[in-house]
């Protein structure tokens, strides 16, 4: 069973990695979105592996079923076809900056994980949804509300961006 879990972990990690590379590197926006979907599904699989079924299904329901569909809608409205502006490769400087960003975050995280290994906690137990709901409204209420503030900020940002573009015309 343990070998099976390792194999499944490797499988999901492969999906996440290849999906994210496709999402960043694809020339067509729709293909990039398919990469993003693959990544999100892979992450959902990781949640499943951690025995967090509710989280995994919510990930699929919200991110794949709603957010990606809306992204697709936005792509469709902008008519970004394969020969468009976005299809050209980014300049070298941008690529270097992106690589630095990835390496710094990944490096710090990797260093932390390597130098401070956590003891394995054994097979994770499933938390019933009732308990999870009570937790979100009780002891973790503040964190829950803060997350909604993040959503509010991103929505306000989107409105602001649209506003400026309309003023510019």
């Amino acid at each position, binding site marked *: 069973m343990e070998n099976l879990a390792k194999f499944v972990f490797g499988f999901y990690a492969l999906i996440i990695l290849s999906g994210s590379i496709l999402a960043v590197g694809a020339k067509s926006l729709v293909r990039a979105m398919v990469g993003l*979907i693959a990544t999100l599904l892979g992450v959902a699989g990781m949640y499943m592996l951690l025995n967090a079924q*509710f989280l995994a299904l919510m990930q*699929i329901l919200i991110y*794949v079923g709603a957010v*990606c569909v809306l992204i*697709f*809608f936005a792509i469709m409205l902008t008519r970004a076809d394969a020969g468009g502006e976005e299809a050209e490769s980014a300049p070298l400087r941008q690529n270097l900056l992106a690589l630095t960003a990835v390496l710094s975050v990944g490096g710090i995280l990797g260093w932390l994980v390597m130098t401070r290994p956590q003891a394995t906690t054994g097979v994770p137990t499933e938390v019933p949804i009732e308990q999870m709901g009570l937790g979100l409204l009780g002891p973790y209420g503040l964190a829950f509300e803060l997350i909604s503030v993040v959503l509010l900020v991103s929505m306000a940002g989107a409105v602001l961006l649209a506003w400026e573009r309309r003023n510019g015309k």
Partner: protein
Amino acid sequence: MSAIPAELLHIIIGLVAVAASVGLIGLVMVWVERKVAGHIQRRPGPYEVGPSGVLQPLCDALKLVGKQLFMPTGADPILFWLAPVLAFLPVLLLFLPLPVGDGLMALDVNLGLLLILAFSGLAVLSVLLAGWASNNKYGLLGAARAVAQSVAYEIPLLLSVLAVSFVAGSLDLAQVVKGQGTWPWNWNIMTQPLAFIIYFVSALGETNRAPFDLPEAESELTAGFHTEYSGMGFGMFFLAEYANMVVVCSVATALFLGGWHGPVLPGPLWFVLKVSALMLLMVFARWTYPRVRFDQLLVINWKWLLPLAVANLLLTAFFVKLAQFA
């Protein structure tokens, strides 16, 4: 060599059974739909091949399998073929948590309802990809309609399902069925009639069935998102549509119509009978009502279904809380 885990074996047997029944359901439904359409329009429907034309869908299926697969020039080769596969594969998963009888389900999870709702969202993506990758104006228009429609109709669907699971106190379909009784007045439809109507209308919208079949409207968009698909490419979309109908009707049966409960006859038979009755209702609806206009479609959802569903949910929550204190 260690033995294969029993759970894995259970799921594999379930998957094989599901795949076989999806094929069979597709064949039967094609015949039923053509026969019903024929009789409603005062013509006999298929009657040449076999008694009353029962073997007609078999010939149609053989023809579909034998047809050449085409791809239009300028289409995205990967996404074009990914779309029908993405339409069909999740459907097999949707069948797993359906409680056909007491303890008779392929995958016994306590979040079965959520699993169905989550993976049915992938159907929209397949429609979108098909419409986009075809490099066809009709396809693109069909896809654009599909987004607006399914994003809208998913909300009342979820809200009406949630009302029932409030009453039952569980997201497990088997648990919801167990909370209901043998006779029709013990079923959830008696306490949640409004939720049932909202669920059924939204389900018609979610499965792109007439009168809400705007993404593939034959008379305006040729065939909408699957205009460019031939042979089994089209066949996969077709099978997925019927399979989705069965899933939607099965969930309705389990949530509102008492699932496998019923007098005299064995449980699984009752389940199949109820699902068949709902399927027949969907077919009748298709041949009775004309297709709605796009603005009407959105008005039905945003001005009627959504407020009603929210009101129903609030009332349900209120009464559930009241029952706890009483």
